[in-house]
């Protein structure tokens, strides 16, 4: 199959290491002079930009965490001046502070490049018409996929999420050949189309690009058989860029990381020491070319492996294995990152409820659902059902304004949630991911 950028995607290991070393030195020098946060961190470690010359030197650099982004909200880690920023994305963050990422024109260009690589790898060409059904807006999914597909030269239908019936009709009527969305939305769409009476043989769909939430081989098979297409994984995170950080090829044995732009490492999340190939640990990225918000050794909290060996597709970029979990308690619900602490802070702000809660995540009709169980405080209990229902509604409204998800609030009898010692496990995730 075709390769979008043969020179980069198939470069030899030596060539690549030399390029990465040069770019790493440059980005370290750049943040040292433009991001006070990194300059002071490096000074604490007695490091100067010239100490970093090759990829082996990366271990000398400090890590960056989500907490660092939060502490420096909103623009503290931005290296480029405001005049150079052409776009800002915001993702959900803990305790109500979103993660803000600014992109320069060059960043947007690189993003479009890496997404074009990914979609070319999926077999997409200029003759395809792709429906992008990731959420458009502040979330990186929609616009990220959109720009990459346009860059490749295929047609984009910016469907975004919602209104599945209209979307289904257009997939049929416009002879859409590909769809990019979360895997659970793909299943929801398949269901909608089946209900509307469309048979997959009447559709022209042939390629699906799915990501933004964990999925499994069995989900892949189900999506493929119900929509009649071949399903590929695309991975990314907004802090680093957005979708396109890594992508599957036709071999579907792991996802190739765009190593000329992002340097990956696997570390032990406890000791923080680097781990070898094929060992499961936390994925860490250093952006090698980013201008807006370059990050050094950003801890993704995603647990996976970096795979050894060569891929038969000819791409030499290292492959990352399937995401096996998280090293923190983040949940991904309908493609949205949700931290239990966000919900906790909303519950704590309402005196009507005890500071005890259980989150139950499920997948109903292929869409994620969130139920929040809370205990009403005895002194707020009244004889009036409507008053209790108004507490429930107010909590649900507040939750929606923080995480953009409609949660079902269930009120329990005080004392019915088991009190645990220390940090309890408040989350029950019933989604079966095998």
């Amino acid at each position, binding site marked *: 199959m075709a390769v979008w950028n043969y020179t980069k995607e198939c470069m030899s290991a030596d060539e690549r290491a030399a390029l990465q070393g040069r770019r790493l030195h440059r980005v370290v020098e750049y943040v040292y002079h433009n991001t006070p946060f990194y300059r002071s961190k490096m000074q604490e470690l007695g490091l100067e930009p010239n100490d970093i010359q090759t990829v082996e030197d990366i271990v000398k650099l400090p890590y960056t965490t989500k907490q660092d982004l939060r502490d420096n909200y909103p623009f503290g880690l931005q290296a480029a001046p405001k005049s150079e920023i052409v776009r800002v994305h915001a993702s959900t963050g803990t305790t109500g502070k979103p993660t803000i990422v600014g992109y320069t024109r060059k960043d947007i260009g690189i993003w479009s490049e890496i997404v074009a690589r990914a979609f070319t790898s999926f077999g997409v060409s200029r003759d395809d018409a792709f429906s992008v059904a990731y959420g458009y807006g502040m979330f990186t999914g929609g616009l990220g996929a959109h720009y990459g597909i346009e860059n490749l030269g295929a047609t984009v239908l910016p469907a975004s999420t919602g209104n599945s019936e209209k979307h289904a009709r257009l997939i049929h009527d416009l002879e859409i050949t590909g769809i990019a969305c979360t895997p659970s939305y793909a299943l929801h769409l398949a269901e909608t189309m089946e209900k509307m009476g469309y048979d997959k043989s009447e559709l022209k769909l042939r390629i699906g690009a799915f990501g933004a939430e964990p999925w499994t081989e069995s989900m892949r098979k189900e999506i493929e058989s119900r929509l009649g297409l071949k399903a590929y994984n695309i991975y990314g995170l907004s802090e680093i860029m957005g979708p396109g950080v890594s992508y599957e090829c036709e071999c579907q044995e792991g996802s190739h990381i765009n190593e000329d732009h992002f340097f990956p490492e696997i570390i032990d999340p406890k000791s923080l020491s680097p781990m070898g190939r094929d060992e499961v640990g936390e994925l860490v990225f250093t952006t090698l070319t980013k201008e807006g918000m370059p990050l050094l050794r950003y801890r993704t909290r995603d647990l996976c492996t970096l795979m050894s060996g060569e891929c038969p597709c000819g791409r030499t970029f290292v492959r990352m294995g399937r995401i096996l979990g998280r090293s923190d308690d983040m949940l991904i619900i309908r493609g949205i990152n949700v931290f239990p602490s966000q919900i906790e802070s909303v519950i704590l702000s309402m005196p009507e409820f005890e500071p005890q809660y259980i989150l139950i995540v499920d997948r109903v009709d292929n869409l994620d659902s969130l139920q929040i169980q809370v205990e*009403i405080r*005895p002194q707020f*209990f*009244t*004889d*009036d*059902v409507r008053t*209790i*229902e108004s507490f429930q509604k107010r909590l649900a409204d507040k939750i929606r304004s923080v995480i953009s998800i409609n949660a079902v609030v*269930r*009120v*329990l*009898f*005080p*004392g*019915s949630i088991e009190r645990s010692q220390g940090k309890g496990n408040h989350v029950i995730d019933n989604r079966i991911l095998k």
Partner: protein
Amino acid sequence: MTIHQLSIFVENKQGTLIKVLQLLKEANVQLIASTIADTVEYGIYRIICSEPDRAYEILRDQGISVALSEVFALELDDKVGRAADTLALFSKEGINIAYMYSFLLHGKGILVFRTDNEQHTREVIEKADLKFIPEKDLSKY
């Protein structure tokens, strides 16, 4: 005109009701009438009993979510259409009934209810000279 009612928040789960009833029994409180209003997830168990103030304290001290509220309790003659005639009085005045139940006390029909406008309801009852039961009639018998 009004009597005290206990409202207890109960979860739809085995053993919740029996716990409440057992506590009242141990305290020698007599149950006179009770009803459960349920939503999908929880119920409100409403009780008319002897010594409601003491019963309230006992339940509260046992960690049960209980509220003490006042409800209207009218005495109706044992004749066809009495409930309809009575409710029509409130309806005409634009008063809505939040909930209602009835029971027999010493052979008389008692209609218990709560409305969305307590003051207005009192005025209607006084004007129509409806019979109501005083709380002392609810002592053990």
